């Protein structure tokens, strides 16, 4: 665990969003059926999201990416620690204030299929942000606004009258983006926005996001399990494993320091048959988040793990390229 931002990672942009030593636990419902069990979905995360940049978060299923996203938007409250947006603590903000803040931070969800109320028309869906924020629009303004928003994300404005089930996944995701951008937010959290789309559509959406960012001066927190995509799209890359940040790559091209990040990279399927890889670098699977091992959570799968790793949990170091590992891959090179 670092001491937080004061001695933390220098960033080029001003942090718009800050995690300070944030934990988030989930308790499985007890009651009739089960014993209560506590699961730590986000574990001691300290992180700055600099304005105007794309911060990527990668990690495998269940590592806490979505939880991090929800915390970022104040949709759930941290168990410990502080999440602040533009300096304001989201957990203590009043309802009305939170609503105002929400106009400036938005989220695009992983599953476009269920992110629009099936009973709403597309037009109503993209205009709902105004309703919620209490901004009244007249009939003509409504139509114009809907048209503008749909046009912005490359959709035919005539779709406004349709219900979501008439749209393809890619179209729905564009609607999701339009909705998120309706209130002109500064921060957009993108939670695996392309994961459930075909590659050809995924590429379209990524291109759209790139274009919008440039046009609207947005800050992105881009969450994905696809390291290749993150490396293509992001300025900084946060690697998570079992709720904890294990490495923060200051740039996509930075040399990898954590064995897990390495494994992640090696697992990617390079679309080039001439470069067939020895696959299976990582062995075993992610252990249950319920009973975390006492030492490094990656130790059970790590080829470099030793006794220390199994006993002492490594902390994120305070270098320009922070890593939480007893045996970082570049030990010989970069000092920490």
């Amino acid at each position, binding site marked *: 665990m670092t001491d937080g931002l004061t001695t933390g990672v220098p960033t080029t942009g001003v942090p718009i969003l800050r995690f300070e030593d944030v934990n988030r636990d989930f308790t499985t419902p007890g009651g009739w059926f089960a014993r209560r069990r506590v699961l730590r979905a986000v574990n001691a995360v300290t992180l700055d999201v600099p304005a105007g940049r794309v911060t990527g978060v990668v990690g495998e299923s269940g590592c806490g990416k979505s939880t991090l996203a*929800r915390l970022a938007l104040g949709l759930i409250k941290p168990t410990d620690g502080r999440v602040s947006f533009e300096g304001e603590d989201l957990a203590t903000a009043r309802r009305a204030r*939170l609503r105002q803040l*929400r106009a400036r931070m938005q989220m695009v969800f992983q599953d476009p299929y269920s*992110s629009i*109320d099936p009973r709403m028309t597309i037009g109503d869906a993209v205009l709902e942000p105004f*309703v*919620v*924020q209490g901004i009244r629009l007249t009939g003509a303004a409504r139509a114009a606004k809907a048209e503008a928003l749909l046009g912005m994300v490359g959709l035919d404005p005539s779709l406004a009258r349709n219900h979501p089930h008439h749209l393809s996944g890619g179209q729905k995701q564009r609607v999701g983006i339009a*909705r998120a951008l309706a209130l002109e937010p500064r921060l957009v959290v993108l939670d695996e926005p392309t994961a459930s789309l075909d590659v050809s559509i995924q590429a379209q959406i990524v291109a759209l996001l790139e274009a919008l960012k440039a046009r609207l001066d947005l800050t992105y927190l881009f969450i994905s399990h696809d390291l290749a995509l993150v490396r293509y799209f992001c300025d900084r890359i946060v690697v998570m494993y079992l709720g904890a940040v294990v490495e923060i790559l200051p740039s996509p091209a930075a040399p990898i320091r954590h064995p897990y990040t390495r494994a992640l990279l090696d697992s990617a399927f390079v679309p080039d048959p001439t470069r067939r890889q020895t696959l299976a670098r990582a062995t075993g699977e992610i252990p249950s988040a319920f009973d975390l091992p006492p030492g490094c959570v990656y130790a059970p799968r790590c080829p470099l793990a030793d006794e220390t790793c199994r006993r002492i949990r490594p902390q994120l170091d305070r270098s320009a390229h922070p890593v939480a590992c007893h045996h970082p891959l570049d030990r010989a090179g970069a000092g920490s």
Partner: protein
Amino acid sequence: MAIGTALLSAARTPRGAPAAIVLVGVVFAAIFADRLAPYAYDMQSLMQANLPPSAAHLLGTDEFGRDLFSRILHGARISLGVAVTSIGASVALGLVFGAIAGYAGGWADRLLMAVVDLTWAFPEILIALVLIAILGPGLGSTAVAITVGYMAQFARLARAQIIALKGETYIEATVGLGAGHAHILLRHLVPNALTPVLVAGMLATGDAIVLEATLGYFGLGAQPPLPSWGAMMSAGVGQMFLAPWVIVFPGLAIAITVVAINLYGDALIDALQIRNRLREG
């Protein structure tokens, strides 16, 4: 699929079509009973009691010489009316309870559901008999009894829907926009939970008609001379050896209507593709 379109497309399926025709017919009879009935439903003529079906009396007459056909037409209005209003009230109450319990969760949920489960615990007929003992007999009490008897079912269903919907991304998305509880509940959750509950309500209407009939057997449903189908059947029990038509025709009316409701409801469930959502309750 929108419920309106679904109603139509269910009516076009091989199972749904005949059922829909029957239901339209019954509703038509209920609305226009006054005009369609050849006689007043309470016009007695003791000298013409228990006549078998004939040209003058299409379905025969009952023990008071009243025209059965006219009574069955009016009976549609009463039986359907009681069933529909009480189930309507039951659905509304169930929605309120279920929505609150499902949305609030935690202790509010447990408490509300404990109450609901209490009524769930007892057979509807017993609930109805006990309630009518308290409220006194009559159509109003019958309606209240049916309302209470079936409420648990809808509350549970509504709650299950709400809980399932709470996990939908669009709800989180709307919260993310800054929406409050009222907006979430009234604009998104309840409207989306409505369809299965309404369909379950429609199916329960059939049961309610039968329950009203059974209460009539104990003398507790519609008060004479109002002709609910149930009241007609129960009065006909004494006549069943002498004038079987007195009990057979109202019985047929019930059976046909209820089967039609069920078949059409089934077609509707398929059209709306909500079969598994219905089971969640």
